[in-house]
């Protein structure tokens, strides 16, 4: 099944859609939407095929590809040639992220039916964003990673700024300023690593750093500094308190279909970067930082939960809920054992699915009610019983009801942390109660109660809206009922990380 340049084709497949869209008149709304949707399919099919092949024993290293890209001579060190190569490759974790990206892109493309204007520009940017996200997870080279990382920023900026809600421009600029600063810090880290090691290949850097126990290549202090810089850079993305305020605005102002990708994938790049680069390149330093990550995780968890408890706009509840749930990722990483890391990765996947489902519902409800203000919507169970049922399901998944994916990740993250720092973990458990409190408060105030009179005349979920919801619910339940379906492909990734930590 694996042909050469498999990953390149996968990453750049949305480009076909962009090229086709160029030649389509911008008024042909249904056609543009169809193309936009179809263009997301090749990547989805290719990731699923690769995943199935991997489950059946195919080596992921077969997928790696490398092409010489640019070379230059360092005038300082005569004879040594610096090169930056175009290198793609995947492991179990990044393959999972690719699949999640491809899936959510397809579903978000479906959810984009509610976009009201300039569909051509919208879908071109949308597909460009998908290329960026896929590239981030497939890059095996720090500089390539950075380029893809930047590619995600630009389309997101325009998608928020042009197709968002009332204060969209402000949100878009906030997004750009924060993420721009994060990128700048990331770039510094990458450049220092590149200059010191002479390579930008991630695995090569990892092995150089691993053998550099005497700190000859990079001094111990610099390593720590670089790791802290990485945590800040990815902490903006994740986001880690107090770097989060931009993402609240984005959650509220961006079009819901873009928030599906934003909450589902873009935030996860932060977690991915912390695991892949933070843990992978600086294992020793990461260990001494772990306690602080766990503390930050508990702060994120509780801070997000308490703030979600008093919001009046449902989108804001979900925004703070995302902050809270990303705390679980940090808790798992801070635990730094098999259970914790696996919990963090599960949470990345699980929250991706659940957040996408919740924002899909936001788009469905917003389309009909024109608002997401919880004071203005009630009795959804009467006016839209199916939507209300799915909303309740999504909320229950989010608050960690067993049988759905949220529970598995929360359980493993806490299992991990209780082994290392039981008192901190016990404080964090307060978040489990608060999550139930704020989600039920929000969701019940929308779905239960008397239907307001002006609210009764709405149609329930249309088939085109129900299909993505059903797929997401199905996956959330599948992972929840049989979690081994994911943990199988993660075993080797986690073993590698723990091995780097020294067993």
């Amino acid at each position, binding site marked *: 099944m694996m042909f050469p340049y498999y990953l390149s084709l996968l990453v750049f497949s949305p480009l076909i859609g962009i090229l086709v869209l160029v030649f389509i008149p911008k008024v042909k709304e249904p056609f543009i939407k169809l193309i936009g949707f179809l263009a997301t399919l090749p990547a989805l099919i290719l990731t699923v095929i690769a995943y199935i092949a991997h489950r059946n024993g195919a080596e992921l290293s077969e997928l790696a590809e490398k092409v010489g890209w640019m070379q230059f001579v360092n005038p300082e060190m005569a004879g040594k040639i610096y090169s930056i190569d175009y290198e793609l490759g995947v492991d179990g974790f990044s393959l999972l992220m690719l699949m999640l990206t491809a899936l959510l892109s397809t579903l978000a493309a479906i959810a984009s039916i509610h976009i009201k204007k300039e569909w051509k520009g919208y879908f071109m940017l949308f597909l460009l964003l998908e290329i960026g996200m896929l590239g981030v997870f497939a890059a095996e080279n720090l500089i390539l990673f950075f380029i893809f990382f930047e590619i995600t920023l630009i389309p997101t900026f325009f998608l928020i700024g042009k197709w968002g809600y009332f204060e969209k421009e402000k949100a878009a600029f*906030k997004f750009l*300023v*924060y993420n721009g*600063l994060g990128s700048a810090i990331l770039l510094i880290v990458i450049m220092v690593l590149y200059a010191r090691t002479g390579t930008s290949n991630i695995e090569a850097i990892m092995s150089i750093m691993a053998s550099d126990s005497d700190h000859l290549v990079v001094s111990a202090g610099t390593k720590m500094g670089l790791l802290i810089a990485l945590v800040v850079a990815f902490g903006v993305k994740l986001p880690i*308190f*107090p770097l*989060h*305020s*931009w993402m609240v605005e984005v959650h509220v102002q961006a079009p819901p279909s873009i928030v599906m990708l934003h909450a589902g994938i873009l935030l996860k790049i932060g977690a991915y970067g912390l695991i892949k680069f933070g843990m992978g390149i600086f294992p020793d330093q990461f260990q001494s930082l772990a306690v602080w990550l766990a503390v930050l995780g508990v702060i994120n968890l509780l*801070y997000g939960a*308490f*703030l979600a*408890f*008093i919001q009046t706009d449902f989108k804001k509840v979900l925004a703070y809920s995302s902050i809270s749930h990303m705390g679980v990722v940090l808790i798992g990483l801070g635990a730094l*054992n*098999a*259970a914790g890391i*696996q919990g963090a990765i599960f949470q990345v996947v699980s929250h991706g699915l659940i957040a996408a489902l919740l924002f899909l519902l936001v788009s469905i409800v917003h389309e009909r009610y024109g608002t997401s203000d919880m004071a203005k919507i009630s*009795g959804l*169970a*009467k006016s839209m019983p199916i939507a209300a049922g799915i909303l309740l399901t999504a909320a*229950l998944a989010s608050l960690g*009801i*067993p*049988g759905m994916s949220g*529970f*598995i990740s929360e359980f*493993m993250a*806490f*299992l991990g942390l*209780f*082994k290392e720092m*039981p008192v901190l*973990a*016990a404080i964090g*458990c*307060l978040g*489990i*109660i*608060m999550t*139930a*409190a704020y989600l*039920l*408060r929000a969701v*019940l105030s929308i*779905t*239960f*109660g*008397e*239907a307001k009179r002006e609210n009764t005349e709405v149609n329930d979920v249309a088939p085109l809206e129900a299909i993505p919801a059903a797929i997401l619910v199905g996956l959330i339940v599948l992972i929840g009922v*049989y*979690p*081994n379906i994911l*943990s*199988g492909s993660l*075993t080797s990734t*986690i073993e590698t990380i*723990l091995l780097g930590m020294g067993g």
Partner: protein
Amino acid sequence: MMENAWIIPLFPLLSFLFLIVFGKRLRAVSAYIGIFLTFASFIISLLVLIARFGSPTYKAEGIWLTIGDYQLTAGYEVNQLNALMLVIVSLVSFLVHMYSKGYMHGDGRISVFYAYLGLFTFAMLGLVLSPNLLQTYIFWELVGLGSFLLIGFYFYKEEAKAAAKKAFIMTRIGDVGLFIGMILLFWQVGSFEYDEIFAAVSAGMISEQMITLIALLIFIGAVGKSGQFPLHTWLPDAMEGPTPVSALIHAATMVAAGVYLVASMFPLFAASETAMMTIAIIGAFTAIFAASIGIVQKDIKRVLAYSTVSQLGFMMLALGSAGYVAGVFHLMTHAFFKALLFLAAGSVIHAVHTQDIEKMGGLWKKLRVTGPLFLIGTLAISGVPLLSGFFSKDEILVSTWVHGHTFLFWLAVVAAFFTAFYMFRLFFMVFTGEARGKTANVKESPGVMVIPMLILAVLAIGAGYVNTPWFGTFLGDWLTEGNQALGHGHVEGPAWIMVVATAVSLLGILLAWLMYGKKTIARDWFSAGVPTVYGILANKYYIDEFYKMTIVKGTTAFSRILHFIEVIVVEGIMKMVAGIISGLSKLGSRFQSGQVQTYGTVAFLGLAILVIFFAVTGGYLK
């Protein structure tokens, strides 16, 4: 047969899935699907129980989740306790399914109702079959979900919404205790399996303090689920759900799950004296505390709800006094007579369309079947001799006395007196005297509702005879067979206990009769005599108000403080960042003034710096 036990919970699950998808089109037919599938569950449960009599415990498992070096498993187990529970749960569930056919007749969302019932029954049966603590926890949460959905069934009522939310959050507080206890236990034992946990406990692998801590944390879970003080307030509010739900979930099965949890982890609890003492004290206190509230309630379902809380307290008291058999025995008899009482109460509500007992009265003549059935339930719960409640309550009192809890014993005796009193107060106010409301259209319930009540009435009378001091303690001997950690099948106690128990229950009935039947004692002698005490009881010791003032208000206030931090500090940082950037830009733009002189100066300065730089360093930054 036991190897097929896994199929038992699948029937109701099938019912749930099928009805949630196709229910809308099936409408009233949904009821038959639900009834049929739970009946199938009941039959298989019965066969499994019979099979368990003749053969040892059966257990089957498969790998569920791999975490590093640990392999967590999922599976099922059939031992004495859960074989018994399977039959109790599936039987009551089946009867409630059948009863609901009549009670929910004409409700537009009947298919949803049956779907939820199916989900709950699935979860409850799954909970019972679990061979490890993690799986127990999973189903433990799912029964809570079922309960939540059914309490909120009338979603358009504000009270139902509030009650559902309250039930979920309050039980979740308890669940977090269980969650922490479970994880701590895992890191002590390296496994969630019950048998490995018990092996580790008996081998002394876990320190005394750790066992106490873990046992108490797990007990917090049981406190939440079984409505024990101080997490009891959700249970009376849960009566907002349809009455058949109250019978199934909030009387017979789910609320007993806390008792079941303590029973199924009994060897762990028994290893800690402190934990056992705590359970006994909480149980006894809850028993008398809830009974005292039950005396003054005016809503037929709330009286029964407080009675449930009180009876669960009795069960906890038994378990805390090492009376494993007594606790499980009372769980069983209570399931039957309390389900009967709720269904009979539902039948009354169905007839008179009110839950206020002040508006009822004289219904004995109108409800010729419900009346006697309600009386049977009342007699059983009051501990009148020869009915099931008499035997199981006696067993609890004996265990408490023999274990040396003299004070708790007398508390329990007073609680038993209260029980007899408030139950017969209820009976006399509803069924005797003059009709106080509109009773012209009062009709007896249809057969589909009466038959389940008849079956439960038979069990409420007869179920006690499986374990009596006179005809043999078959149940106790069987439950404890081959497991010394559970204690003896039967505890011998002084004979006067039975006399005392009978006397207090008859006294309670007598007092109720004098006040509400014959009316020789004025009804308001208590409320008029000591209005303060009456006020406290009628307001349930103001515990809801206390929680509202402290926890709810405190949480909101804390959230507001964080919100303040968010606005001032976090947004402040952002404004600062934005300010620095725009400040730098403004500074830069000042140079773009269009004045050639300025540009020239800057260019000259730059050139000068570069020249100096080259001159000093030779061009490289080292």
